[in-house]
């Protein structure tokens, strides 16, 4: 590739440069203020590289953000390196920008997707998987590549949340597999309730499962009155709303399991267990063994607790809660 370190600088009118992200741009969701402050204080330290373009007069190859910052600071012109259209191939220009960015900052997920999309016309799938995905810190597999490429298709709000790290990739993947209306509605719930990554997937999975089980739409599930009431309850803060919404969906999704858990808890609390004693059921009641925990500080305390336990009348009532119900 051509060595551009000695490329001459020209004073370029900023109006000649497009302020739309062009084919080499790999920036999304950035804060211009720190850059503006730096330029304001120390001037333009690193010169953008622009190329003559047929549609616009010039297109930023490297330094798109600096161009935007300069425009925002009302500069009229700035010194830049200018390439004529035929000096480098589009793929070289793309790589130039990619390596320049790689050396100076991390990419967010949306930007990684933009890069993969821009590499696609110039490089084979094999090359992208083997060379460029590791460069972006991504595992070299097809499904990851496809997922990242799709991120650019998301609407702005979703892309923004993704770039900001508010949504997990698992969540994004699940949302991408839905119709646009369901996706938008679910995203709004996730955003409103400020669900963490784990909660996001629970919310989505349970909603999807209820919709599948009852052959109803996702939108209908999310319009159920009790769920809407939780979201609109002024007396609840966001973590409380999140917890209650998830609990509501879980109860809907697993009616027998939640009923069994409640029956078990009721049985245990009615026993009047001594202090520092706990009886719990195995996860999902799958293992047949229940667990007894006793906290004690010395043998005397243990002896007293065991005696109290032995005096309880209803221990025999502990068992699989569905047996109790039937």
């Amino acid at each position: 590739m051509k060595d551009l370190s000695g490329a001459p600088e020209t004073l370029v009118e900023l109006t000649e440069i497009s302020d739309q992200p062009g084919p080499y741009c790999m920036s999304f969701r950035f804060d211009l203020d720190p850059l503006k402050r730096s330029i304001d204080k120390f001037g333009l330290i690193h010169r953008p590289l622009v190329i003559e373009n047929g549609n616009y007069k010039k297109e930023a190859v490297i330094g798109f953000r600096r161009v935007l910052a300069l425009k925002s600071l009302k500069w009229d012109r700035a010194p830049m390196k200018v390439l004529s259209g035929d000096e480098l191939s589009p793929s070289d220009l793309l790589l130039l920008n990619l390596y320049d960015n790689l050396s100076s900052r991390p990419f967010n997920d949306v930007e990684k997707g933009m890069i993969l999309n821009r590499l696609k016309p110039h490089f084979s799938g094999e090359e992208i998987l083997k060379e460029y995905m590791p460069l972006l810190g991504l595992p070299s597999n097809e499904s990851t590549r496809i997922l990242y490429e799709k991120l650019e298709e998301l609407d702005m709000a979703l892309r923004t949340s993704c770039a900001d790290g508010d949504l997990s990739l698992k969540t994004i993947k699940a949302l991408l597999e839905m119709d646009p209306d369901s996706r938008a509605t679910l995203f709004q719930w996730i955003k409103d309730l400020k669900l963490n990554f784990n909660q996001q997937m629970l919310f989505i999975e349970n909603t999807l499962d209820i919709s599948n089980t009852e052959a109803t739409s996702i939108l209908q599930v999310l319009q159920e009155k009790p769920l809407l009431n939780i979201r609109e309850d002024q007396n609840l803060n966001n973590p409380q709303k999140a917890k209650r919404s998830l609990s509501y969906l879980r109860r809907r999704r697993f009616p027998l399991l939640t009923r069994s858990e409640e029956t078990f808890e009721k049985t245990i609390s009615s026993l009047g267990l001594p202090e520092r004693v706990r009886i719990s059921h195995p996860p999902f009641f799958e293992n047949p063994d229940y667990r007894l925990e006793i906290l004690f500080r010395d043998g005397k305390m243990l002896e007293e607790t065991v005696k109290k336990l032995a005096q309880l009348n209803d221990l025999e009532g502990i068992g699989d809660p569905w047996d109790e119900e039937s």
Partner: protein
Amino acid sequence: MTNPPLKRVLVEEGADRFPSVSRILKRIEGIPVERVSDRKKEKMSGPLNMDKTSLRLISFPGEFLKPCPGTKGYICCGYQILNVGTNCPFDCSYCILQAYFNQPSLRIFVNLEEKLHQIAEVLDRHPDRIFRIGTGEFTDSLALDPIAGWSHVLIPFISERNNAILELKTKTNQVEGLFSFPQRNRIVISWSLNSPSIASREEHGAPGIRKRLEAAKMCQQEGYNIGFHFDPLVHIPGWEEEYKRTFEMMDKLIDPNGIVWLSMGGLRYMPALKAIVRKRHPKSRILVGEFVPGLDGKMRYFKPIRIQMYGFMAEMLRKWHEDLGLYLCMESHDVWEKSLGWSPKNSEGLSHFLDRRAVKFFG
């Protein structure tokens, strides 16, 4: 016989030297054949495309006979899996193979005959043990048999041994090919059964329940002993009535005295299968139900649901015939106790139970 709609045959490097390849190619004359050297290039492009219109002929480098790995925390029957090929022409929505294999196509291992001596060595090393061997774990035992000719190799081989049983597990109804063999001894032809609606909605391409049972009847008339596997049992609204329809058909068509064993297993799946089912079978109802993580990490119905299903099935089946060799596949001691009223307690106990069934039928 079932003819999968094949569009091409891929003969992998190293497979050509086995005589079964020319026999197989003769059976499917007219279908374009390609010689392929590099398996990697043919990897599945994603779980959506299982490429069931391609048949691959492969020299399998691994061991053909392996014990079923069982699963942590549950009672296993001690089965031996004879791995003769992978994938099958049917496209059941719940098929675990959708998540198991990262390689597409229907696959036949063409070096089975050449490996028989290794299997014989294993059997001969343990003359006092009974090997219950099945080919239906990673493929349908009979769906590709008209092409692969597995039964031609295996039925005579197993029939003359005293310590092995061969189970051919299938969903097909075209069993006439089996009647050309003189041997019947130590062979169990078994069918995967379900409710008629699950069969028609979820077992794409497979014959319906009546056809399977008619095939079982034909096999009984031809002197074969048979088995049935209600696996996976699917818990959807109205499931009791649905399964009753299958029992009614069994009652009309099958002589229960000729049933070596009958297993039941609730639907279970690796978590990764869920997304694949949603994509490949968006209309499927199999994900309906309260699935929880099992002790082995697979998703399975919440325990009381399983107990209820097995209990109901067992009651109905026992009303029909008391001695069916009824057993549960991959279930825990307490589920056995609560649903069937007894338990083999552990995998060894279940193995003994099924070995006794084998001895009862075949000596």
